């Protein structure tokens, strides 16, 4: 079990945003977490990264409880998040953004990994010396994913990588996510685009106002009438 949440609760002041959820991600899996706006998906990811404290319950990553671990420690242990809204460093160049992804690394493979990102995302190579703020939304998203990959993650948390992108780019992003998973990176994918997410995932969780209401094999969820009605825009 690479990641295991047990009874996780997360609060914002007095507001309980995550109300005691259980969730596991096994090594090599691509798991998606879907749900409507405000369901608590990003809050869950922020708690996993240590950006928010757990009010109750536990988070275990690679067999260790993460409580009290500083945020900057987790990437060193292979837990890396590409946050919602991309969070690129707008005034750093594309290449500097990628270098920041490898901030925790000092091994000889960094230069090779940089070239790999440029192979996956040729647009980034063309714009390597440009400040990242001048990139288009889609390019910024690719940069955010490439930057996360530069850390050589064991577990990659992706928060809505398809947000705000044109359909053609959305398809491309999901293709890339699938490819990253195929190369052995374990992924927890948060998405609004439930159909696409379930199509690439092995398993899925459905979150509704702070609680997990459904969980199972991705294929099964795709066929589940409740999911079809609420998240795939089909009438039962």
């Amino acid at each position, binding site marked *: 079990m690479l990641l295991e949440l047990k009874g996780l609760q997360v609060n914002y002041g007095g507001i309980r945003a995550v109300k005691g959820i259980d969730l596991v991600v096994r090594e090599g899996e691509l798991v998606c977490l879907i749900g409507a706006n405000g369901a608590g998906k990003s809050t869950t990811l922020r708690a996993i990264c240590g*950006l928010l404290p757990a009010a109750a319950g536990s988070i275990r990553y690679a067999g260790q409880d993460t409580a009290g671990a500083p945020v900057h*420690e987790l*990437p060193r242990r292979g837990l890396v998040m590409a*946050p919602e809204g991309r*969070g*690129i*460093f707008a*005034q750093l160049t594309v290449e500097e953004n990628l270098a920041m992804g490898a901030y925790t690394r000092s091994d000889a493979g960094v230069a090779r990994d940089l070239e790999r990102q440029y192979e996956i995302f040729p647009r980034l190579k063309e714009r390597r010396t440009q400040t*990242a703020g001048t990139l288009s939304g889609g390019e910024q998203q690719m940069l955010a994913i490439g930057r996360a990959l530069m850390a050589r993650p064991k577990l990659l948390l992706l928060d809505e990588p398809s947000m705000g992108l044109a359909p053609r780019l959305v398809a491309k992003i999901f293709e890339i996510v699938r490819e990253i998973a195929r190369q052995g990176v374990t992924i927890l994918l948060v998405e609004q685009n439930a159909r696409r997410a379930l199509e690439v995932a092995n398993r899925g969780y459905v979150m509704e106002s702070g609680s997990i209401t459904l969980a199972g094999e991705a294929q099964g969820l795709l066929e589940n009438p409740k999911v079809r009605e609420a998240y795939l825009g089909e009438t039962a």
Partner: protein
Amino acid sequence: MDIFVQQIINGLTLGAVYAIVALGYTMVYGIIQLINFAHGEVVMIGAMVSFTIINALAAAGLPPLAVVLIGAGCAIPVCMLVGYAMERMAYRPLRLAPRLAPLITAIGVSIILQHLAMLVWSRNVLAFPQIIPLTTYTFLGATITGVQITILGLCLAMMAGLALLVYRTRLGTAMRATAQNPQVARLMGVDVNRVIAATFIIGAGLGAVAGVMVGTYYGVAQYTMGSVLGLKAFAAAVLGGIGNIPGAMVGGLLLGVVEALGAGYIGDLTDLCRYGLGPAASCADGGHFVLFGSNYQDVFAFVVLILVLVFRPSGLLGERVGDRA
């Protein structure tokens, strides 16, 4: 004509020092949006520590350059420690507080440091011993001293070194990333607390050298010297665009030149006799009746500060708000 060149030279010398001090303000502001009003006191402590050492060694018969270098070598670590301590004890606990709280704290730290310095060094003016022989060179009809050349060269070297650090190293990239988005920087594995501490330490180290230079230049140091110098450097940082590193360099040099030219010409320009307005008794036989003398030199920095704040608050090289991702 020579007075023009002369004032440019004098202005660039002081301006280079302002730039070095302004960098301390702007780096800290860039990373935690705090105007560290105590930075001027760090510069003062640098001058006081180095003067103490230099005076103690003045009679030892060492070469003057070695004496000054030892003085600076002692001032730098002391100031770095002061910079680190103020971040750790005064500002870090307030990192999440409303912005006014650390600002007022900075003023408090400034008062505390100034009075600590008064207790250590008394109210007396420390004088720089006569150890550096006056060497002068003539340049375009103006005089430039060896000390001026040294100060200018050293400041330019420090600016180049800082630019290399900030734009070419891992720490520098982490500093810029933290300045833009500390939350995401943490997600990339940056220990934001350490980066902020490093920023204070680097700024204080630069401030220490600036203190040694300005003290050597004027030949005196006193526990109050940090206030006006700090405010001028702050004005320089605002002129260049607070938070912007090249801006602090440009702003410092420009402010020094404006100040020197202002001081050089204000007497002439406000001589009422020129305009036939002065009292006849004073103006007779080519006499003068000067309204504002060069002792108004300090005013220019603040006039510039006000003009910038009114007409271009983002400064010359300042970034638009909203550039943050």
